[in-house]
């Protein structure tokens, strides 16, 4: 599919990724993502019949006791927020519903 990576497709992916791309970026990514996927498409020629996917190389499940441990206090957790309100203990964001 890659050779025909269209600007409309770039726009659709950018919306999913929450990225406001400029027109120049859309044009550039349409070409570059097309080229990268043209190259990556070679994986589809490899026979993987009956081969399970690897999501992680970890084989042993790390278990621990389910006990309460110390965690960051609220002021520290809010200290890096662009619009944190330590008194209220909240992150402030723009309105969600217009």
């Amino acid at each position: 599919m890659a050779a025909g990576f269209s600007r409309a497709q770039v726009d659709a992916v950018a919306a999913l990724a929450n990225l406001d791309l400029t027109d120049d970026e859309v044009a550039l990514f349409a070409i570059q993502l097309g080229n990268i996927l043209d190259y990556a498409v070679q994986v589809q020629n490899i026979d993987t019949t009956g081969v399970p996917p690897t999501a992680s190389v970890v084989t042993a499940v790390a278990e621990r006791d389910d006990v309460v441990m110390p965690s960051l206090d609220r002021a520290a957790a809010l200290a890096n927020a662009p619009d944190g309100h330590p008194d209220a203990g909240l992150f402030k964001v723009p309105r969600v519903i217009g």
Partner: protein
Amino acid sequence: MTPFGTLREIRDAVQSGARRAVDVCEASLATIESRDPALHAFNTVVRDRALARAAAIDRHPSRSTLPLAGVPVAVKDNICTSGVRTTASSKILETFVPPYDATVVQRLEAAGAIIVGKANCDEFAMGSSTETSAFGPTMNPWDTTKIPGGTSGGSAVAVAAGMTPLALGSDTGGSIRQPAALCGIVGLKPTYGRVSRYGLLAHASSLDQIGPMTRTVDDAAIALSVLAGHDAADATSARAAVADYASALTADTASLTIGIPRTLIDTGVDPEVGKAFYAALDVLSGHGATVIDIDLPHAGAAIPVYYLVSTAEASSNLARYDGVRFGYRAPSEAAGPGGRMQDDLKAMYGRTRARGFGPEVKRRIMLGTYVLSAGYYDAYYLKAQKVRTLIRRDYEQAFARVDVVAMPTSPTAAFTLGEKLSDPLQMYLADIFTVSANLSGLPAISVPCGFTTSQLPIGLQLTGRLFDEATILQAAHVYERHTSWWTHHPPSR
């Protein structure tokens, strides 16, 4: 006093009281001050904090037994340091000051190491040259018109230029080993799960691993013994026993079987790199190793598999940078009557991420979002995960016959700044020999094995079995003892 003292020499001198940690720290800071304006290895230098901590080591009641007593260390800027700015070389985290330490930082400082600063890297560790840093590239000390490799380029340069004897890097597709090779130092990517990643800003969680960068194999072994071990704060952290890696480096011969994937190596390796690589194998076989050919039939697909898997994971991991809990938030552009904010949340997300992330990070988020999206998941992401299984099986079969797999670390020596920046695919192809260790979780080390005719370093990569760092350290140590590449240092200006 040369700036190229080893970690072991410094540690021993501070332990015995022959040198004060404060003097060691001052020397490190002086080298940074003289060299870093031309090299840009550091995003942040913490002079006062470092000197205060060094003074505390000089007064420490257990100073004589601390395994890293007074050792200056550069920490890659994607590893959290409590109270010290941690940016991942991204504008979106330019002012982020973590409220906690990464586990590796805690372990280094508990062992007596002195953090002198945060090392530059590719933005969110995405790149192969340290050129995607939002704060400008790092230059290779062997030739400042060349890239230092990446993504841990600042860490590699800090060590290569004698600023610190130890640096921490992180390695998702070669980001410790490739800059180590291109800067003429030692870089070790431990087994996935060997070293805690708690406090590492996540890039691709099934691949990321933290490891040491040093000028000698012995120093890497000392550092690994401090860094390794189980951590309840990282669910992927392994409970496998940690060896005293430095004490295991006793043998003078490597009575090992070393496998060479000749077909893979002979396609597309620079002739000077190939020559140095095969000469290095002759040194190892001259000291007891048996070298045989092996086949890794799916290794050629490692690059596309890597870029499909890693970008998918990155697109998910980087969703957290949205201008709410930490980092940059783009200001509202839609002030209504009385300056009241007219923006909505979704518009704020999109603008913040568009302005906060650089081009390579955006490109990878886009690619990863695409390969995970409905209709393409099976064809790209799931397919890549299946081929990843085949790549793992290739290594399992190889390790039934050999103890170590050897390859060049990088197909070329350092390339020129700007040369590949406009062609992302060409940049990705530079990772051909390093990504498969991440896809399979295996430990791998890069050790200096020569120079090109233009005096640029070349690296030898040795890959071992899961949790068998001891064997690759031993083989690398035998090689190092019978060669003198590690004694070469870059020109001081």
